[in-house]
Each structure stands twice: as C-alpha cells, then as structure tokens.
C-alpha cells in the first residue's frame, strides 16, 4: 500500500516538527496505576468469591431454589377380597397470583411483543382473557374479577397488597385443566392434587369416612388410619430458571413414601346387602335411623357395618352432621330385651339355674319397692327357655336378682359392656355401666331386661358373639385378619350352647321373632323393643326395635345385630322391624360365605294361620 503524494508531504512535515521528550516515568506511572486497579479487581474477586460467598449464595438460593414437596399417593382402602373402597386419583387445581397481574381497561389487549422487564413488573391481563378463563372454569366473570382484582382493605382501612396465591378452581380433571392452561393467561397456574374417590359411596361412608379437600382424613378410617394411609411426603430442593422450570436438583431427593393399602375386614357384597336391607326397612318403617353390624363370629372381624341415614362421601357438598354419625359404634341406646340372653347366660353360667329350671313369673307382675315390672305375655311358671322365648321381664328380673350385685357387674364387664371395643374407630362409645355399689335392687332387675345400662349396637353384637363361639370373647376388628385373634373364655361352652338353643326357640313358632327365620338355615336371636328415654322420661311412643342373632345355630358363623331407631309406632316391635332385616341379611351372607345349610330348605316354621303373633314390648 502506498500513499504517494500525501505520504511524502506529511513525512516532510513530520521532520520539521520539534520532537516530544517522552519520559519513561510517566509511562511507568500510568502502567502501575492500571496494574494496581487490576490488583484491586483480584482483591475484590477474593472477597466476593472466597469470603462473601455464603451471603451471596444464600441470596441466590432465595431467588431460585425451591423446596418442593412431593405429595405421597394416599393408600387405597380395599375390602377383604381386595375390592376397591377408596382410591386417590390425580386432579388439577387452578390457582392464580393476583399480585403479579393487573387488569387492562375495557377493549384493550396486551401487545403481542409485551415483555416483562423484571420480576416485580405486573403483567397486564385483558377483559377478553378474563372472560375466556371464567367460561372455561365455569364461574361468572364478576366472581373471577373479584377474586383476582378486588383491593383488600385491612382492619385499619388501609389498602393491602393483593394476595400472592388464590385458588380459582380445585380438583379439575386433567383434561379440563389442560384447556384452562392452554388459554395461556399470565398469572394463572395449575397444581397437581389428589382427589379421593369412593366406589362404594354411601354404603360404606361411615366406616371409611372421607378426606377433606387437602387430603386429610376427616372421619372413619380415613381419620384413624390417616398416618399409614397418607404415607410420607417426599421433598426435593431444586434450582429453577426464571421461567419456573426446574433446572437441577441440588440435594438428594427424598422420595415420597406412598401410603399403605388398608385392607378392611368388610366384605363389600355383604356390606351392600346389609346397607340395602337396613335402608329399605328404615324407609319402610319411617324410622329416624338404624344400624346394622355383621360379625364373623369365629374371628371377630366386622364383615359389614351400615348406618341409616348415610351420605355420599364423593360429594363435596355440605354433609349433614347427623348423617355422619356412625350409630353402630358411637351411639348408645338402651338395648331392652336383647339383654335377656346375657342375663340368662349369667344365671346359667353361675349355676343358679338350668335351662329347664322353672321360675314363677307371678302372672307377669313383680313389685320391687314402688316400681312394678310387667310382662306383655303374662304366664305362670315358665322354664328359662320359655322366659326367653316369650321375653318375660319378670323372669329375667328374677334371674338377675339371684345374682350378687358385684358378680353381675363383673359378668357384664366380661361380656364387653361398659368398656371401649378398641377397634380404633373414632368416637367409639364405651357404654355406661354404673358402679355396682350404687345399684338398687330395682336397677339390678331392670338391667336384666335391658334398661338402665346403655350399650352400642357393636357391643351387643360382640356379646352375642360369645354365644356363637362357645363362650370366647374376641376383640372386634375392622381389618382383615390372617388368623383369628386369641379370645378370652368368659362363659362355659355348655352355657353358650344352652343360650344358643334358647335363641333358636325365639325364632320358632311361639317365639317373638319368627320373622327372623332363614330358609335352609337354623338361626337364633333375641328381639328387643326398648322405650326411648326422651328428656329423662321413658317415652310412650318412641321405641328402639332391635334384633341380635346368630347363624347358623348348629355351627355359628356370623352374628348380626340390627337396630332401628324410632320406627313408626305400629312397627315398633323388634320382631317386626328388625328381625326381617336380620333374616334377609343372614340369608344373603351365608350364601356369600358359602356356609352349607344346616336345615332342610323350604322349611319355615311360621305360626299356624290365625294364631296371634307374639310380640314383646321390652
């Protein structure tokens, strides 16, 4: 390259100029200044990266690390055969961060090239977007606008910051949630949640209970076994980029421990049967409510437990607290005559009487102090078996009075009254058994036919289970057992057998519960028709009709206790209102369990036509 003319001219000019005197110290001064500044940079680097790094990393963590909870899948609940009773499924909940958005005036849209300058800047949202969102969520525009943009005022009247988090719609199906998220509206997010589904619905509502919207057990086994069902949530600490995507895990992931499956002793088929029969009877008899328990007498397992009225645990609408009561376990009632079998067993076991011992019922009247005990079907002298069959109050009272107060108390305790069953059920009732020292003779006498002591249906069923299993009292369990739990011999086997025979006679012609009979099986049981205590006074109209029985009698397999609360007056008798339920449930259950018939079929021994039905009043 050459610049012929200019170069020559300028070169000439250069020669003429006085030359500068470049002093080296000036160069060194500037150079050292620069080197000093470089050294300062290195010093600052050492400070930032070697000494201040804790603080800086902490600041960084605050900005982009998040501790994520990894929800554990709630355990299933199944029946004894593995049928699903409760299961958690994945759903999506839509939430919003109102603080991060603001509403554009009507008719204005967010420009397509709109960009967020920093994290703090609010994103504009247009009314059309809100409208799309509300129609997709199925709520009104006004409601949505209120949730998102309403200025909140605290107690002092100062405007508060809008919240950072608000649920818009919970538990949407994944498909619906996808549609909502596809609208791509800023500040709207979705979160995976679990929703509990109960295939058995209201049939088993009282046993299983339900969870609240956050997955916490609220009732039943969902509550009592919440810990094992819920499992343990896992956690992971992650770094997220500014758009919220997870970039990496910075600590070891603690995986969630899914909840364990809970296998109940309930048999869904028997449960269905029990629920259906109970419900139809409660409806038919216009009763306030009812409860039924089906026990496996050999193991103490609960095969079915139903209450009426029930509720649908799948529905999130408000549930009437009265419907939530598990009457069979938590409610107490005065059992009435069903108690007589226990009284008889007590007298027999103590050797005070034999099944054939004759007791004079004094024409169905007995006076103790100012009180008089009456029989509905007065008779003269009756054997213990007949007392049971005809449900004589006087006979039962006389048997009780043969016993020492303390011995009677101990016996009732042994039979499981007055103490909790410890089935692990929430709100389980212990029943009321007053200290024997306070007992007056009339109280001891009325207790013999089921007044003055309160029990739960479950306790009653358990006491009858003693007769079914030759005198062994077993713990009641709602979970499926591999082997029966050891029981406790509380009465002699002979006593149990004798009581069983009496119970069978109750269902035979001449007894109070012929309607309890089952085709093909010999069954036994005892009716109860107890006056209800209303405001401390025994009501004239309100009754509790019940029946507790065993089947089959020859080789007992199940115990069924039925209680109908306040049936219509004409249906008040246990033999009318509870015994048919027993019959239907036993028939179905024994077939389901494959129990061989122990009696010829087509052999129902109904009273001869025209004969008056024997109905007891206690």
């Amino acid at each position, binding site marked *: 390259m050459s610049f012929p003319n200019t170069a020559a001219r300028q070169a000439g000019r250069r020669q003429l100029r006085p030359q*500068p005197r470049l002093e080296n110290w000036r160069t060194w001064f500037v*150079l050292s200044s620069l080197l000093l500044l470089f050294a300062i940079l290195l010093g600052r680097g050492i400070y930032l*990266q070697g000494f201040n790094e804790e603080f800086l990393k902490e600041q960084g963590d605050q900005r982009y690390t998040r501790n994520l909870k990894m929800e554990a899948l709630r355990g299933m609940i199944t029946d004894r055969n593995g049928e699903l009773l409760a299961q958690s499924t994945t759903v999506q909940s839509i939430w919003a961060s109102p603080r991060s958005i603001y509403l554009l005036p009507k008719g204005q849209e967010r420009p397509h090239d709109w960009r967020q300058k920093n994290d703090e800047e609010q994103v504009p949202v247009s009314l059309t977007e809100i409208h799309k969102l509300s129609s997709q969520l199925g709520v009104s525009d006004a409601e949505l606008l209120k949730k998102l943009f309403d200025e909140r005022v605290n107690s002092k009247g100062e405007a508060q910051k809008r919240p950072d988090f608000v649920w818009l719609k919970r538990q949407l199906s994944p498909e619906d949630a996808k549609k909502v998220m596809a609208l791509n509206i800023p500040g709207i997010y979705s979160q995976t949640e679990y929703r509990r589904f109960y295939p058995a619905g209201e049939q088993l509502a009282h046993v299983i209970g339900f969870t609240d919207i956050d997955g916490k057990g609220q009732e039943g086994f969902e509550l009592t076994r919440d810990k094992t069902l819920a499992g343990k949530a896992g956690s992971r600490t992650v770094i997220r980029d500014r758009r919220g995507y997870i*970039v990496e895990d910075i600590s070891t992931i603690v995986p969630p421990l899914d909840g364990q499956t809970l296998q109940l002793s309930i048999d869904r088929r028997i449960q269905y049967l029990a629920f259906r029969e109970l419900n139809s009877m409660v409806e038919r008899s216009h009763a306030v409510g009812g409860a039924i328990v089906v026990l496996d007498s050999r193991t103490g397992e609960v095969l079915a437990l139903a209450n009426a009225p029930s509720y649908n645990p799948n529905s999130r609408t408000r549930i009437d607290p009265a419907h939530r009561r598990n009457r069979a376990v938590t409610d107490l009632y005065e059992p009435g005559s069903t108690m007589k079998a226990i009284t008889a067993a007590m007298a027999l076991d103590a050797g005070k009487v034999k099944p054939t011992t004759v007791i004079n019922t004094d024409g169905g009247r007995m006076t103790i102090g100012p009180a008089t005990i009456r029989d509905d079907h007065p008779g003269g002298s009756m054997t213990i078996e007949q007392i049971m069959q005809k449900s004589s109050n006087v006979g039962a009272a006389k048997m009780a009075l043969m016993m020492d107060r303390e011995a009677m108390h101990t016996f009732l305790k042994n039979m499981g009254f007055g103490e909790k069953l410890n089935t692990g059920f929430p709100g389980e009732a212990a029943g009321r058994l007053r200290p024997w020292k306070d007992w007056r003779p009339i109280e001891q006498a009325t207790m013999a036919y089921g007044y003055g002591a309160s029990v739960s249906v479950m306790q009653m069923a358990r006491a009858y289970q003693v007769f079914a299993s030759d005198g062994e009292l077993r713990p009641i369990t709602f979970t499926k057992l591999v082997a029966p739990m050891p029981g406790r011999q509380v009465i002699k086997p002979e006593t149990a057998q004798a009581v069983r025979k009496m119970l069978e006679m109750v269902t035979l012609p001449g007894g109070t519960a012929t309607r309890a009979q089952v085709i093909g099986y010999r069954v036994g049981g005892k009716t109860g028709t107890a006056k209800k205590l209303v405001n401390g006074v025994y009501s004239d109209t309100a009754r509790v009709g019940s029946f507790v029985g065993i089947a089959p009698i020859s080789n007992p397999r199940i115990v069924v206790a039925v209680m109908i609360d306040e049936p219509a007056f004409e249906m008040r008798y246990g033999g009318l209102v509870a015994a048919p339920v027993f019959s239907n449930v036993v028939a179905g259950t024994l077939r389901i369990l494959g129990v061989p018939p122990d009696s010829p079929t087509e052999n129902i021994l109904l009273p001869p036509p025209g004969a008056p039905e024997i109905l007891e009043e206690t």
Partner: protein
Amino acid sequence: MKQIFYQAMKRLKPTMSAYDPALLWCVLLLLSIGLVMVYSASIAMAEVDKDTGFKATYFLTRHSMFLVVGLAAGMFGFSIATRHWQDYAPMLFLFGILLLVLVLIPGVGREVNGSRRWLSLAVINLQPSELMKFFVVLYAADYAVRKAHSMTGKFIDSITKVLLPMGLVMALVGALLLLEPDMGAFVVITAIAMGLLFIGGYNWQLFAGLVVLLGGAFAALIMSSEYRRARVLGFMNPWEDPFGKGYQLSHSLIAFGRGEWTGVGLGASVEKLSYLPEAHTDFLMAIIAEEFGFVGVTVVVLLFTFLVFRAFRIGLQAAKLERHWQALAAQGIGIWIGVQSIINIGVNMGLLPTKGLTLPLLSFGGSGIVANLLALGVLLRIDYENRQMIKGYSL
C-alpha cells in the same frame, strides 16, 4: 565441513521473532474464552427468545462471524505502515465525529433500549462509539506529538495551545456520546485522551492540579445533592432494592458468590438462565466468575494485565527508538483495553456504577470486537516495526 558447522550454529542462535507471539497468543486466548463464554452465557436466553428465532446457537454464530471480520480487520491494521495511521489520524477522527453525528439523526441511527448507538448499514449494525475509541487513540497520540513543544513550553501555552483545543474537541465528542447516551464510551475516551496527554509530556504539576480540581468539582457536585448521590452511589448497596434498581447488580454479585474458588463448571451457571440480564454482553464476566470461579476471574484479569503490560512495553521500546507517535499510540491502546476491562469487571463486581461497557475481546458485540482487533493489529504492527528497526532494517 566448516560450512555445515556454520549453518548449524546459525540455526541454534536465538533469533528475534518478527512479531510478538506472546501478545498474539494472549489475544487469541482471550478471543477463544470469549467465544466459549458468549455461547455459554447466551444459550439459555437465545433458546427461549422470539427475537433469536429460538435458536440456541444464535449468538454463537453471530459472534463467530464477528471474530472472522475482526481478525480480518486486525490483519488490515497490521498490514498498514504505522506512519499512514499517524498521517490519517486527524481525518479519521473527523470521520468518527461525523459518524457520531449521524447516529443521532433519527431514522439513521437505531435505538435500542433507549440508547441511540447503532448505525444500520445494510447487513450489519455499526456502533460508531467503538470505532471512535480507536480514532481517539490515533488522534490523541498525533495531537500530543504535534503539541510537544507547547506542552513543555510556557505555562500559558500549555493551557491555550494544548489543553484548551483538546478540551474543546473532547467536549464536543463527549457531548455527542452523552446524547446517545453512551456514558461508558465517554469515560474510556476521556481516559485515553488524558492518559496520552500525560504520557506525552504535559506539565505534570498542572496535570495533577487539573485532576484534583476536576475530581473535587465532580465529588462536590455529587455530594451536594441527595438525589445525585443516590444516583451515582446507589450501586454500592444493591441489596437495598435487589428486585428493582439493584436487580442486575445483585444477580451479578450472586454469580460471583456462587462461583467460589473454582466455579460451578462450564455450562452450569444458573444466573444465565434469564436471571442476569445482558449476561452475554456487559455481564459476561459474572458468568465466567460463576462457571469458573476465582480461578477463571484470575485467568481473565491476568490475560488483560499481560496485554496492557505488553502494550506499554511496546510503547517504551518505540519511545527508545524515537518513534514518538507509535510510542503514544501503543500506550493509548493499552490504556483503552486496560481502562475498559477494568471498568467492565469493576461494574460486574459492584465496584463501579453500571456503565454499559462491554468486556473487550470477550463480550458479544460486532463493532467492539472489530475495533479492538483493528487496534491490536496496529499495536502488533508497531511492535513489528520496532523489531525491524532493531534488526537494522529501515522502514
């Protein structure tokens, strides 16, 4: 036999290289680090940006192209005899001022983020202020040489004939730059001009007085108003408003902290995941610090230190050879690279207020790379000519 021995001896005798290989390698190393780090810092951001067409390699390919153009510019700078640069210095300087005027004309200059710094030329965007830094080096060196007599002469001459004209010219350039606004370029250009006046032999007592006077006036100006103090010194505590004004700086500092001594490893930076704005340009150092830790910071700082040191050594050598303009030009280039890298790294480390200056040779940016490499080409040429003279060749 004797002939063969002579030949062997000749080969063994260390001969001086025709150019400065250490300086060349230093520059190439910095460019390589820059290329890798620009890609690393931009990859996540480019991937999600509509403007880049969601291409992760968007900035990598651009930067590579800039490097090719820049290396060509460097070779161009090297291939021209330095006296031509000196001869054309005033004209180039005028040309630079013209460009700075052009960039301010609406429709000609392109505005990005509120600054009017770019000229759109068919395919590429030119940033005149980057070129102006180079032209100022050439011009200030020439000016100091031309005014050598007046500088050391009478006191009144050193003011009226040296300081005043230079001051006026610099005020014009400064005004043009501040109109863009490009505060960073203004600071660098002022540093070059003043540095070269000082090295050129300007009365040091007067110079020192001037520095004290200007510095004092500036300090008084800042301290006199709460508002100005907050504006200028606000950078000192980014944690006061870490999500607003201190956002960028606090994230830059976090990147340094996360890097610790040895860094989180190449590609593992979190700050570049859209947290730290301008990670591939002004705040590239923060990403280097995060991914390579203090080790990485030290390597980059030492490479710059070496580069600056080398430029001054070349300047000293040129001065010894009575090549005054070349001596000053070489040191001017050293001041330029040195001051700009110090300010950039200082900003990244929270030592200086944010200026909008890139890290020379490393940051993404076409004009900057091209201007830097052009200047370094000239520096290598000065060194080449020094060596030729030492070997006894005439130029």
